[in-house]
């Protein structure tokens, strides 16, 4: 892989997030973005004059608009500045985070603002996402963003009863976290005594994937400001350092039998490479928090195995023993994760923003009480696209 050490270190110096919800009828797109921009600037104690470059991203066609970055200048502050638009599907927010880091590391820009947004209520997501599929082979057969592949896999491996219980345990834990996060779109107040009822009666979507397992469609925006080491130290006493990030993807439709590629998932492949080049031998011990892009409780449960390079049923035990809770051994998504809020173009950037806040220690009611020094954030998009980002409290590697 063409990986080279960074030209210079980069720190996160400001974050902003809107409240996530099903509707934002009170603001247009530029106005909603502006809320997050304003928050991030205030958080970093900067003005737009201090920002050298703006990177903007969301899902193609999800609001049925073309080149939104141009007219969002009214809210983004990009007027007269170098600016880029990125759109890499569900991973857009993760790619925005990579771009923010790379652009600041390159030396081209000292301060870079990354903006992710989505107003899913305004468009027709299935209409947009169907465009992803090849018109000859897949477009007539596609089921949009819904799949029960992880459920099939877990049930096959561990039996229906244990797998279903693990997925619902994961779901309830995420809801408990969402209830702590004031920005959550969905926080139901689920409790353990509802487990059997939900497993039985939540409306089925595809196979064993039920409505309660699945992420929401949300409106919202997220902004993260990146600065070079020198600038970051001037701007804030608590920069969060971007240690490394990695992107791995492949088109699954034309590779269903994995004839030409390794049989590893892109998640495991990305994790192995990232840990290897950073000398991390036991990720479960190393990281203090993981903000995972978990589109459903089934995926979230299954993917723990991939991201932490686990074997056998170790990932199920993490869930069953509630070690993934905010006060557990390996807190997953203290924010509530993607099931709690999914403004897609912002979603993966929210993972990075939330991980950064946990390291700073000012996440709010969902702050992990133990010290957080090492954080991991993931992004996921179709068809199999992984971005993994590592954040650090200390610049000492």
């Amino acid at each position, binding site marked *: 892989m063409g990986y080279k050490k960074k030209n210079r270190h980069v720190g996160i110096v400001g974050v902003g997030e809107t409240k996530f919800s099903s*509707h*934002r*009828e*009170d*603001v*247009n797109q*530029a*106005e909603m973005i*502006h809320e997050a921009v304003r928050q991030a600037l205030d958080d970093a104690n900067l*003005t*737009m004059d201090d920002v050298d470059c703006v990177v903007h991203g969301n899902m193609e*066609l999800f*609001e*049925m*608009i073309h080149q939104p970055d141009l007219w969002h*200048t*009214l*809210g983004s*502050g990009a*007027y007269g500045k170098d600016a880029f638009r990125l759109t890499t599907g569900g991973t857009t927010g993760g790619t925005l985070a990579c771009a923010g880091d790379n652009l600041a590391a390159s030396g081209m820009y000292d301060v870079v603002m990354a903006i992710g947004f989505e*107003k899913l*209520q*305004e*468009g*027709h997501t299935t*209409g947009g996402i*169907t*465009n992803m599929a090849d*018109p*000859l082979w897949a*477009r007539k057969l596609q089921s949009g963003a819904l799949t029960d592949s992880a459920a099939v896999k877990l049930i096959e491996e561990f039996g229906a009863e244990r797998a279903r219980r693990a997925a619902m345990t994961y779901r309830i834990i995420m809801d408990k976290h969402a209830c702590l996060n004031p920005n959550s779109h969905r926080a139901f107040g689920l409790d353990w005594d509802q487990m059997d009822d939900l497993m039985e009666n939540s409306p089925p979507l595809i196979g064993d994937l039920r409505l309660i397992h699945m992420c929401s469609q949300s409106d919202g925006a997220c902004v993260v400001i990146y600065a070079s080491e020198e600038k970051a130290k001037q701007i804030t006493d608590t920069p969060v350092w971007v240690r490394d990030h990695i992107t791995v993807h492949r088109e699954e439709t034309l590779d269903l039998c994995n004839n030409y590629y390794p049989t590893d998932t892109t998640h495991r492949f990305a994790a192995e490479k990232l840990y290897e080049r950073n000398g991390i031998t036991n990720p479960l011990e190393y990281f203090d928090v993981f903000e995972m892009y978990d589109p459903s409780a089934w995926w979230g449960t299954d993917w723990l195995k991939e991201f932490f390079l686990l074997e056998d049923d170790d990932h199920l035990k993490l869930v069953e023993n509630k070690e993934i809770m905010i006060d557990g051994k390996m807190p997953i998504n203290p924010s509530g994760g993607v099931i709690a809020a999914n403004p897609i173009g912002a979603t993966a950037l929210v993972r990075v923003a939330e991980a950064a806040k946990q390291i700073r220690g000012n996440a709010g009611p969902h702050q992990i009480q133990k010290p957080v020094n090492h954080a991991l954030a993931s992004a996921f998009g179709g068809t199999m696209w992984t971005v993994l980002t590592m954040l650090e409290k200390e610049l000492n590697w």
Partner: protein
Amino acid sequence: MQKAVDSADAYVIEGKLALPYSYFAGRVGSTFITALRDSKQILGVRCDKCNKVFVPPRQTCERCMADLRENWVQLENTGEVVNFTVVRYSDKHLPRKTPYILAMIKLDGADTPLVHILDEVKIEDIKPGMRVEAVFSEKTTSTILDIDHFKPIA
């Protein structure tokens, strides 16, 4: 003449995608459109720092980031043509039978031009700087087409 590309046996898939959407106009946009619809008033916003009146209005000044949402200015229904072009091709999405004239019109009291239809004038008679006034639609559609068009001031 020989064909440049051999397209024999090349299958083309004909498809059609629906693109339904809603657009939340925001409070500033909503105020503009309801004033136009209910009172036939055209509103702009002023940025005091940049000394500019923006039409259409926006919540934030993109130059200095000032919050403009309360700085309403009522504009005249009159203004001048900044520039114009003639739409000559026909398509279903166009608002008029072609040919018709699209003009940038700077309303009196505004610093930015508004794009709209210019009518009741011969193409050869239009000149930048020409004085025009708004003609409001008889029936509202709660859109920018509640101004039906602009016409020259006699």
